[in-house]
């Protein structure tokens, strides 16, 4: 049935966007770093999963256990060695935002360049759990369902960690007001580094899961960055529920446009939706108004 043919793959795609956007909103909302190299990190994780699967026949689900901690450590190093200087240099948030965009641009090209050297420009994919199953009359590969399930588990765990633990509460406090958080004894610098690393771990998880069912190449990262940004902004920066709804919405709209209009117009659809939301509500669907 056409409706489910759109809805189910749309939900799978949307679930991926939510997971990816969750990491970005942690990096941007807590560490105040607008990370434009985000999509490249994702594609790098996809390549890691591919290499482990084809080289060592390691299941992508096991690859998660390797990729996530490594990515977190790399992101932490990036923050401590490079980005923290921008935080120290800029007194106002706007200048820091601009500087972080520009620096992570550079990082984007470095990662992309490294991947191009290693893998070239061609498309890659591998076949893992690509067994078709029929659900509600539409056919779907098992790997997509597994990816969705993992995304749901990871997303829920992050949400609970943020809302139910001391550390999560501290992270949210920094997101709301870093200066006030430091006044109540929260080590903002350490926590910002932690949030940045954690966000990096989430994007690696997204990359591994996406690699199970999408074809990818070294130059694709920018597209993922843009979509994650669109989800974060549409949902309202720092708003987990907003990102959930915006992500699912985006996944379904994209699938619908690809299916009903033209697969070449998915990005156009994304941007039209993005612009429409921003024109009506400049702070996102669930964002708070700032005066």
């Amino acid at each position, binding site marked *: 049935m056409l409706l489910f043919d759109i809805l189910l793959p749309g939900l799978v795609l949307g679930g991926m966007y939510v997971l990816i956007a969750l990491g970005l909103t942690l990096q941007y909302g807590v560490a105040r770093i*607008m990370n434009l190299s985000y999509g490249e990190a994702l594609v790098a994780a996809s390549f890691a999963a591919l290499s482990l699967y084809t080289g060592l026949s390691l299941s992508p689900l096991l690859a998660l256990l390797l990729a996530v901690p490594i990515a977190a450590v790399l992101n932490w190093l990036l923050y401590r060695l*490079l980005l923290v*200087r*921008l935080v120290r*240099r800029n007194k106002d948030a*706007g*200048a820091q*935002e*601009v*500087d972080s*965009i*520009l*620096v992570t*641009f*550079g*990082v*984007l*090209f*470095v*990662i*992309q*360049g*490294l991947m*191009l*050297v290693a893998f070239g420009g061609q498309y890659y994919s591998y076949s893992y759990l690509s067994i078709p199953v029929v659900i509600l009359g539409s056919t779907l590969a098992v790997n997509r369902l597994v990816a969705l399930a993992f995304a749901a588990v990871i997303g829920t765990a992050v949400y609970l960690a943020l809302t139910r633990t001391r550390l999560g509460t501290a992270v949210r406090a920094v997101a709301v007001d870093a200066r006030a958080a430091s006044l109540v004894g929260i080590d903002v610098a350490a926590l910002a580094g932690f949030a940045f690393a954690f966000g990096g771990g989430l994007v690696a998880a997204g990359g591994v899961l996406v690699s199970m069912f999408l074809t990818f190449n070294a130059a694709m990262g*920018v597209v993922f960055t*843009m979509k994650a*940004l*669109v989800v974060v*902004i549409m949902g309202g920066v720092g708003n987990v529920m907003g990102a959930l709804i915006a992500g699912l919405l985006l996944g379904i709209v994209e699938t619908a446009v690809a299916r009903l209009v*033209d697969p*070449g*117009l998915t*990005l*156009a659809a*994304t*941007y039209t939706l*993005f*612009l429409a939301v*921003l*024109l009506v509500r*400049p702070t996102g669907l669930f964002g708070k108004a700032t005066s």
Partner: protein
Amino acid sequence: MTVRNAILMIIALLLGAAIVAVPLYANGYYLALGISILYFTVLATAWAMFSGPTRYISLATAAFFGIGAYSAAITAETLSWPLQLLVAAGAGGVVAAITGLSTLRLSGIYFVIFSFGLAELIRQLVIWYEVNVHKSVGRYLFSDITQEVLYWQLLGLAVVVLLAGYALNRSRYGLALRAIGADETAARHAGINATLVKLGVFVASAVFMSVAGAMMAPRWTYIDPAIAFNPMISFQVVIMALLGGATHLLGPLLGVVPLVLLFEVLTAALPNHFSIVLGLVFVAIVMALPQGVIGLIAPLLARPHAKPVAMPAIAESPLLSVERVSKSFGGLRAVEGVSLTVAQGEILGIIGPNGSGKTTLLNMLSGALIPTTGTIRLGDAVISGLPAHKIARLGLARTFQLVRVMPELSIAENVAAAALFRAGASAGSETEIHDLLELVGLGRRSDTPAGELTYIDQKRLELARALALEPRILLLDEWLAGLNPSELETGIALIARLRDRGLTIVMVEHVMDAIRALCNRCLVMSAGKVIASGTPEVVLADRTVITAYLGEADA
């Protein structure tokens, strides 16, 4: 003319002649290099024209460049060359106007992201059009324009762009643009139509980019959307402008020349590692040279400020009247049915506990907020609902409770920004600005950046900026708050001096000594309503007022 100037002039002329004559002596390779330098000069200068002062980082360069190139490719067979350029300029301008109107009210980060995707979006739309309507992707382009002619065209365009940038910097719109970049809210309340200024410059910059694209199109004999809308162009332009310094007219040029040469060497020597090196260069520039090369040089060059001369306008009899004005935020009624009038030459004080709606009322008067119901008149004109910059131009100026100066602009520029668009006269003269600064006690330091001032001096500066609008009425939002006793005395004397000059003032204040010393009448607000009004002596003795401040039990 001194001998030194004459020598400099001759050197400049020789250099200019050498640049113009490049096609006559350079071989193909160096000519191509010259063409690259010129078209990146055009793009980076046009980029910095808008993005430098406003700090809106635009990644839409590739979009406008591509629009120009592609429209030239489409019209190549049917239109003459000047018409092709005109069509390209028009197409770029229209797209910039549409995207600008919808995205320029978005603050920094949203704008970056949208412009980031604009080239990709347009590219997808063009491909879709070519596949479905034109039935083939890509166009062949046969043109008799030689490399030499292309070089001279681009050189001409570069000169036009630099002249336009120079004219913009000299005009009042240049300062207005920098004021917007420093603090958009303050700029609006200083009478600057921020939306229009931003849009105008954004469109102008896009038109230059599109024309550059149209000129470059014949260089490729075959053009498809992937070539025309190459996102790499956007990144390269940003990095070039930043390396040179985006806040200075010639800054981008200083970045273009070394980077074009570097890229040239890189593509030849390390074709596979191009983007790695590009990325590392990018990171290094942002980390090490936040102000660009020009930031290293600029302090060595003194920048003289030329300001047009203007005569102050003479105020006629003003009267502010507020009729049953209310403002709700969702369910919260911050101001409810407030009416008041202010006579010419009067000082009206507004007092009341925190959260009683005083600042909300001022925000409605100055246009920062639109009343939910009720009308506000300034003289005969209804001002409720007008945008802030229009109210400011009608003669209502304000200061902010949390002081707002434009930190990167000098003290004198902060004041001059407010004089730009006031009614009647054009920008303020240097003596006028100096007099205003003298009046508030900032006389001798007009070149200091405003961000380096102490709190009290920033307040003084904000007052001078408000006065530069030559207001009929001045709103002071807790202007005396946070001052020490001696500063308070000076402050009160200053406001008294303004009153003696015939200025009408509405002041929100917690300092009762100031209310007693200055106000003819005062008005007490509590929970959004006016609960008392009259002379300060009467009002401050009123039981309901004391209750509102101190609570029932203590009263």
